[in-house]
């Protein structure tokens, strides 16, 4: 067997750590048309509760912003993003390392009833896509209408990008977050890098 010296981390590793350089190269290769980077280790909690029940109000108070009840909306509260995933489901995204504290806070705030809080921080990793051609890049693999008129900052969707299930969130300054299952992350990174080839030469 080959010597096990090449891969020897002693610390945790994000799903796209090994793709970081190739992702970083995209910005230069496309002349800044698109930039792609993993935002690793963000805290992510899946929240399930009755949107009309007391737990919803309690969650809103604890998070600092009411849970969005309209489809396709991601609310912001300081460093937290609360993405609507379904009529009784949200994804709370926060700074790296905050999942334990956030989970404990939510659990105690929500009380009984039957809210569910699940730490899913490692379930998906986050890719940040930016640059003037980012919408065109996403349009290669996402069937949703991403025109600013219909998908602007604060919009979110569970959809497909290429052949991967993703949560897509429109961020400030025309950037997007793409949350992808960790096992699909490497496929999606390859797909994004390949898609960006279109922007690497003179544009017609």
């Amino acid at each position, binding site marked *: 067997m080959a010597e096990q010296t090449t891969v020897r981390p*002693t610390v945790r590793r994000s799903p796209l750590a090994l793709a970081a350089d190739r992702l970083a190269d995209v910005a230069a290769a496309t002349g800044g048309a698109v930039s792609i980077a993993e935002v690793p280790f963000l805290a992510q909690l899946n929240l*399930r509760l009755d949107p009309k029940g007391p737990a919803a109000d309690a969650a809103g108070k604890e998070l600092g912003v009411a849970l969005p009840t309209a489809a396709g909306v991601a609310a912001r509260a300081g460093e937290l993003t609360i993405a609507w995933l379904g009529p009784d489901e949200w994804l709370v995204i926060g700074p790296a390392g905050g999942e334990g504290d956030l989970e404990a806070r939510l659990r105690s705030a929500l009380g009984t009833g039957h809210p569910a809080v699940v730490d899913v921080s490692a379930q998906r990793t986050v890719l940040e896509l930016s640059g003037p051609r980012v919408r065109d890049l996403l349009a290669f693999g996402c069937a949703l209408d991403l025109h600013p008129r219909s998908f602007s900052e604060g919009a979110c969707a569970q959809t497909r990008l290429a052949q991967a299930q993703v949560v897509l969130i429109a961020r400030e300054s025309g950037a997007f977050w793409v949350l992808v299952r960790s096992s699909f992350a490497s496929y999606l990174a390859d797909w994004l890098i*390949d898609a960006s080839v279109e922007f690497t030469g003179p544009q017609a």
Partner: protein
Amino acid sequence: MSTQEFRTAQGGRIDRSRPIRFRFDGSDYTGYVGDTLASALLANGVIQTSTSIKFDRPRGIFAAGAEEPNALVQVEAPFPEPMLTATTVELYDGLVACGLGGQGRLSPEPDPARYDSVHVHCDVLVVGAGPAGLAAAAVAAETGARVIVVDERPEPGGSLLGTRETSVLEWATSVADRLRSNPEVKLLTRTTAFGYYDDNFVLAVERRTNHLGAAAPAHRSRERIWRIRARRVILATGAHERPLAFNGNDIPGVMLAGAARTYVNRYGVLPGRRAVVLTTNDSAYEAVFDLLDAGVEIAAVADLRTGGSPVWGPRCAERGVEVLAGYGVADVTGADRVSAVTLAGPDGSRDVAADLLLVSGGWNPVGALYSHAGGRLRFDTDLGSFVPDGCRQAVAVAGAAKGTFGLAGCLAEGAAAGREAVEAAGFTAPADTRLPAADEQPASPTAQVWVLPGDESRQYVDLQRDVTVAEIRRATGAGMRSVEHVKRYTTAGTAHDQGKTSGVLTSGVVAHLLGVDVGELGTTTFRPPYTPVSFAALAGRDRGMLYDPVRVTALHPWHEAAGALFENVGQWKRPWYYPRDGEDMHAAVLRECRAAREGVAMMDASTLGKIDVQGPDAAVLLDRLYTNMMSTLKVGSIRYGVMCRADGMVFDDGTVIRLAEDRFLVTTTTGGAAAVLEWMEDFLQTEWPDLRVHCTSVTEQWATVALVGPRSREVLATLAPTLAVDNASFPFMTWRDTEVAGIPTRVCRISFSGELAYELNVSWWDALALWQAVYDAGQPFGITTYGTETMHVLRAEKGFPIIGQDTDGTVTPQDLGMDWIVSKKKADFVGKRSFARADNHRPDRKQLVGLLPDDGTTLLPEGVHLVAAETVATGALPEPPVPMLGHVTSSYHSAALGRPFALALIRGGRGRIGERVYAPLGDALVPVTITSSVLYDPEGARRDG
């Protein structure tokens, strides 16, 4: 090299300062930028491009666009591509092509070009950038609406490009410029909308770099599929001229009149020197005058209408052009090219020398996309054409596609359609619309003629398929009354062109032969694609490594570095086995198995599906979905469970970990993860919405390392010094939260091998650190990594079934010998009722058993069937049907048993234990003995180490 002797002295939309060299059928020619292969060939006097597929008859360029039925070519260089029409291949430097008789050749070389697809949304989609389409787009775009205009040609203008309407063409150019500079508008040229589906979903293919030849930049996709979702669609797809059936109508030099006009005006090419014209309508006269002015001699115009054309007749007389009203073509003379035309009419017949015979049998509005969308067509007797007649989708038709053939009418209709569409999409259209002035000739009615008198076996209806009127008569003579049947019987309309010129003519000929009304008869069904689309374009970027997503665990890079070979399990790549130098799979797997049974071994089990089940009724849900009781499970403990479908057949299995009174972690098979979550959600949302439970997938939140073997406890103890690992403190089927190598870990005592074993669950992020720590700590114990093959052997030795391998949707828990997993106490659970079915109690149901080949050496192939001894009493298989007992579901070499063994589903198998049966392998009958499915450690002595 030829000298383009058929090129006009000036004119056309070609760039005469940029000559291009190309090769066709082995000869070198020149053309100009702006030419198609067809126009360049005609400029060089080449009209024949191939011979026909069935009768080997010479065939020539017949049309000037996508409707071309004849001029199929194979491009040989720069990249081989079959079955293109010369009339749509733009000329580029270095093009090498040859004519095709109906069949092309795919390149054996991989295509190096990129292909892609894009999703796009708009308020208004306009298909066709001719006068009607541009008028519509101009109005719509002015409102700020998102507008997409697609057109198959290299430049906008549509039919204007083939005329001398310079002032309207100037307007078209300025509209196109305005559209291009509008950020909310996409004007896509070289783009063919080829399919129109429900909800105004339209597919188009853009040919982006084909016309650049070898100069195509590598980073740009060669072809692109546009997936367009439009709130409103305007079809301004124009019309195709149709031919007539007459003797010799397939000889090169017979050409559609409008095509000849296009060659002269757009390309500056004379398709011949001396032309005869045959027409049923006024449009051919415009060709007459354009050709005349370009220097083509018009020998005669045969107008099938007895009164000729009241508008154009006198003008022809002025120019000295002879019009023969009521005349038709009786025959065409010429071997490889028209040399003379025999005209026949009220005053007899005469031969006219000519090298060109222009034909116009009327115009067919292009109704393909409208039909794809579900639109109906009706026959308009005044126009002699099928026109749109209503559609369920948000679509409008404008211009010639609607049967409006005059230019002024097309412009007005387009503008109106644009206004209506954009207002329906919620925008405010401008108060008035400026349209260019356009001459409009009053047109006299078209004569409805399909077939001229003559020899039906020489009158072609579908030139590409070599279908004649005689053949259609054979079909109607055989009793066919539907054009659909005639199409299938004769193949008319089934070629690359899908009957663009021949389809309506076929209907007309059938109507003529049957003596029925063509409107009653209708057309054949139009189906996508409108024009051929390459498979490469449809595949786009979903090829090679991106064809299907490859799912990997957090440990994948380690496995790769360790030289593992991988097995595809669904979309996952799982390590199959880890060969050492010189080892084959057999040796590696035996070694890995030995390590797990005798020492310690480790495996990446992260692909197991994992679902967090939370809520006060979580235990109730699990009791209802698993066959066994889950509510009695204690916090801190683990239970194996089986799920059945309502029919009582095993659906999935896994372990259930109780984390708290109201919280469980459920594992599923690798392939069953998504299905089990859906199964749970389905029941919660539709059957039991009263249950207070939430399910969340955590498959990739947790990575899992299996640590297996009699020495696994020692390895764990070195890494988790604070964990009491003795059997009493940490018994089988319990779990503990602890730190392993300093990493927060949930350690589960679960065994899928029968050995003392642990599953170490950590955050996906920590997987590699944990794995490496276990690997390092295990070195003194000779720890061995193993893959899915060894996992399969170990579990099979213990008779643990793999759902989906040893089961196939017809197997109950009882069939697996797992009656013990089916609760007798629970009032109900999914599948329970089905266990009472008489069929589930048949004694001859297939049951899971073990098999040992008697010779101790033969490895039975999985899937091989088994027959009873009495069936092969003669020493050979009887004549079919051979009574079968069942088949092998799993088969391996066993290091522990020192021999191959198998699992099999056998009729009444458990009652046959000890019986010798036979596996037919090739010509041999291999004797095997049926055993219990548990072949190793049946008393379970090894579980606690």
